[in-house]
């Protein structure tokens, strides 16, 4: 009997197959934006960028009854039509517009970094969702390097718990690192790369978390089916098993009256009498328009957020909006993301299973026996052929027949990713390519100066990467790889508009409210003072949920008063999308 009975879908509430082909059908019935605010209608919160952070903010604020709109430079995805199981065909998921990159260790941007379109980077993330450790929030106090956060782990912990259920996160029941915790969904089965990590670590006596934590469904929930292990996560999960704010939060936001204005690029934030009164933007047809708003939240990613604030310089804010501290665009961070590749005699076929499915945080914390502060994680990755070919051309320095030969062995290779903490440094920056002050000049199609990103490794970073790389290679060898090579790279940009205890040290306070403009907020990865060696996505979403609680507690004060109330809000459990928190899902206490 065929596995695919035309009339009986395998699982879940899928549509019927059509055309005699085997379809699971359009899985996400996402209704297009329905509410449309007029430009001259004063909305309460205008969110710039509907990505990891923006999607969560939009959903929370809409549920709380605010008039809220998310302006998104990219499209509202029609997942069935726009997304494909194909590397090249997924090019449009990324922010492909020009940026200039430089410094001693220039970062690759584009598909190495940020998304464009509703869901932002959560559309193409691998969905690893480890929490930060308590130590991450006081790196300066503990190690005398980097910075302290203006909040502690305890303040964000309830939001980790919330988001882990809203996404939800699959992983082991007992996660031993940082503050030990469990996960609401069961761990995933292993793929070949996970087996490599487990084998290597077990031989060396290193603990491994198998099957998560990842924001990928290990069992179906509602209209979202479980993972089918197709391995195309960073090409966007057409199945709907992997969480993105497009499927986890935006539908609920729309349901509660939010607007998502897609293909709308915000070009400048407008300030009048010391307060924001709206934004200038280019609509889908390229017309410049102005939308009035009582408050603005910038959630555009660690590059576009500083860029927008710098491009919004005006009288009284000559060095960029909310930049009286001079820290805007500074302390940009990326994690070391070296890929360590090992060849095995036995085939691996690493394209199966989600790239993210096992990791170790055994080396996360500062170890006084090492000659550097902070640490790293080792995670599974699963490069598909094009990505792998490029990695091998670098890692083995090959081309011609040598590269063809190596590629014929694709199925024999396994790949592990280092995720190393790089500290925040003042000279790692986002600036404008505006041709001034010795900077290059480059503009986008709207005539706006693009971002110029500068990245330099410092001593601690170099030592950490060297150690982490060697340790990962050791794990690969212990797993039985007969040949081990590696490619240096960087991942996950955060920082650039950091939160701080004091106005002179950062751009915004612990809720993302800028120190200079009382109704202007920043909330996305750019607010992070340090980054740990955990992938940032879960923390970004948890911070966004917390800021939403704060804004709800503040009520209309944000829209009128200039005072700053730094009282922490209660963590609201009533705002989760339906069927998530406390709704039929095992509840961790």
């Amino acid at each position, binding site marked *: 009997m065929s596995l695919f009975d035309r009339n009986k879908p395998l699982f879940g509430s899928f549509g019927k197959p059509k055309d*005699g*082909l*085997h379809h699971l059908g359009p899985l996400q019935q996402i209704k297009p934006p329905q509410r449309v605010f007029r430009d001259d209608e004063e909305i309460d919160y205008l969110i710039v960028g509907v990505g990891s952070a923006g999607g969560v903010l939009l959903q929370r604020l809409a549920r709380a009854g605010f008039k809220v709109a998310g302006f998104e430079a990219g499209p509202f995805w029609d997942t069935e039509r*726009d997304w*494909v*199981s*194909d590397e090249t*065909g997924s090019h449009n998921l990324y922010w*492909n517009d020009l*940026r*200039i*990159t430089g*410094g001693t260790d*220039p970062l*690759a*941007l*584009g598909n*190495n970094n940020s998304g464009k379109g509703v869901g932002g980077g959560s559309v*193409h993330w*691998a969905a690893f969702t480890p929490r930060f450790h308590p130590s991450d929030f006081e790196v300066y106090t503990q190690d005398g390097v980097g910075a302290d956060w203006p909040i502690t782990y305890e303040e964000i912990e309830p939001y980790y718990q919330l988001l882990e259920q809203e996404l939800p996160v699959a992983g082991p029941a007992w996660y031993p690192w940082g503050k030990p915790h469990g996960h609401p969904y069961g761990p995933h*089965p292993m793929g*070949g790369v996970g*087996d490599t990590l487990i084998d290597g670590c077990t031989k060396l006596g290193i603990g491994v978390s198998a099957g998560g934590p990842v924001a990928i469904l290990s069992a179906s929930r509602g209209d979202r089916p479980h993972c*089918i*292990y*197709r*391995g*195309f996560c960073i090409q966007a999960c057409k199945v709907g098993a992997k969480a993105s704010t497009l499927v986890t939060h935006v539908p609920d936001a729309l349901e509660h009256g939010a607007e998502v204005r897609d293909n709308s690029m915000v070009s400048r934030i407008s300030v009048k009498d010391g307060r924001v009164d709206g934004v200038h933007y280019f609509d889908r047809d390229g017309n410049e328009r102005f939308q009035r708003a009582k408050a603005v939240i910038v959630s555009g990613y660690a590059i576009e957020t500083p860029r927008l604030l710098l491009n919004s310089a005006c009288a009284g804010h000559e060095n960029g909006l909310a930049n009286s501290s001079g820290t805007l665009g500074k302390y940009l961070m990326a994690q070391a993301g070296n890929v360590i590749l090992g060849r095995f005699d*036995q*085939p*691996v076929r690493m394209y*199966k299973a989600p790239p993210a499915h096992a990791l170790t945080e055994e080396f996360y914390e500062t170890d006084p026996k090492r000659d550097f502060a902070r640490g790293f994680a080792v995670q599974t*990755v699963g490069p*598909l*052929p*094009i990505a792998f070919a*490029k990695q091998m*051309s*670098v*890692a083995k*320095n*090959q*081309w*011609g*027949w*040598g*590269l063809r030969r190596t*590629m*014929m062995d694709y*199925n024999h290779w396994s*790949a592990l*990713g280092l*995720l190393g903490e790089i500290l925040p440094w003042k000279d790692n920056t986002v600036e404008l390519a505006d041709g001034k002050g010795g900077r*290059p000049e480059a503009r986008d199609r709207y005539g706006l100066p693009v971002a*110029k*990103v500068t990245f330099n490794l410092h001593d601690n970073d170099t030592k950490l990467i060297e150690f982490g790389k060697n340790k990962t290679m050791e794990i690969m060898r212990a797993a039985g790889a007969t040949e081990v090579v590696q490619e*240096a*790279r960087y*991942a996950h940009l955060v920082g650039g508009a950091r939160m701080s205890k004091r106005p002179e040290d950062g751009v915004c306070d612990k809720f993302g409210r800028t120190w200079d403009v009382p109704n202007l907020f920043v909330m996305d990865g750019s607010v992070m003072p340090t980054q740990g060696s955990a*992938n940032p996505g879960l923390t970004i979403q948890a911070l966004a949920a917390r800021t939403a609680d704060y804004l709800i507690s503040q009520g209309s004060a944000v829209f009128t008063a200039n005072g700053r109330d730094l009282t922490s809000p209660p963590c609201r459990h009533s705002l989760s999308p339906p069927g998530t928190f406390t709704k039929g899902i095992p509840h961790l206490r």
Partner: protein
Amino acid sequence: MAPQKVQTKRLPVTDPLDGAPIQLDQPGYYEGFSTLSQQAYWDDATRKVVLQRMTAAHPILFFTPAEAATMAAVLDRILPQEDRTAARRIALLPPLDDRLFHNRIEGYRYEDMPSDQDAYRQAAKAFEQMAQTACGRSFHELETMEQETLLQSLHAEKPTAPEDAWKGINIKRFWALLVSDCCSAYYAHPWAWDEIGFGGPAYPRGYMRLEEGQPEPWEVDEQRYQWAAPADTLTDTPASEQTGEKVQSQAGQGGTH
């Protein structure tokens, strides 16, 4: 550890007499494997994208005919295909030309590099200059080994070229760009997937055999043989052995985790 599933059989890939490659419809160790044969199990959007890639005619619009001749010869050395039958070669120049013509970039430009368009324009000229200087003939007219020698000098960042042929270009970065464009074209093709045993598009069916390199029922087991590159090449040895020195590659550029 599961039992070794690999079967070994020997297939000569180069003619034992003259070392010329024996041309196959499908090189690689997965005889009989065809991703395209599975297309009924792909979703519409993916099928459309992949089939279009195979059939769409791309007139060369960015490169001039002379530049196109040079670049086609360069790309043929970066990812050579003499082991493929003529009908089964994967076009490398058209996708690159199309990308440059439409100015589709990867979202950034290095501070010490011109735009992709300018870099390729200058490179096409520089390759030709290198050929003329070293051999007094056009790049595309050179013997394979001559072309490889020139490319190798570029790879080693010491191009045998007139002084300012590569001026304004960071050669390490251009090399990475060039190889990366070739990889993007070649390994996007179903024939390349068949060659390396990659399962290809997998929605909505998904994969079920995740561990120990097990093939799905519709995939095939590897059939290894002693693969050898044609005799007239310098590129089938590790790069460090080619040049006798270690070339420091630049950091990788793709996203992973």
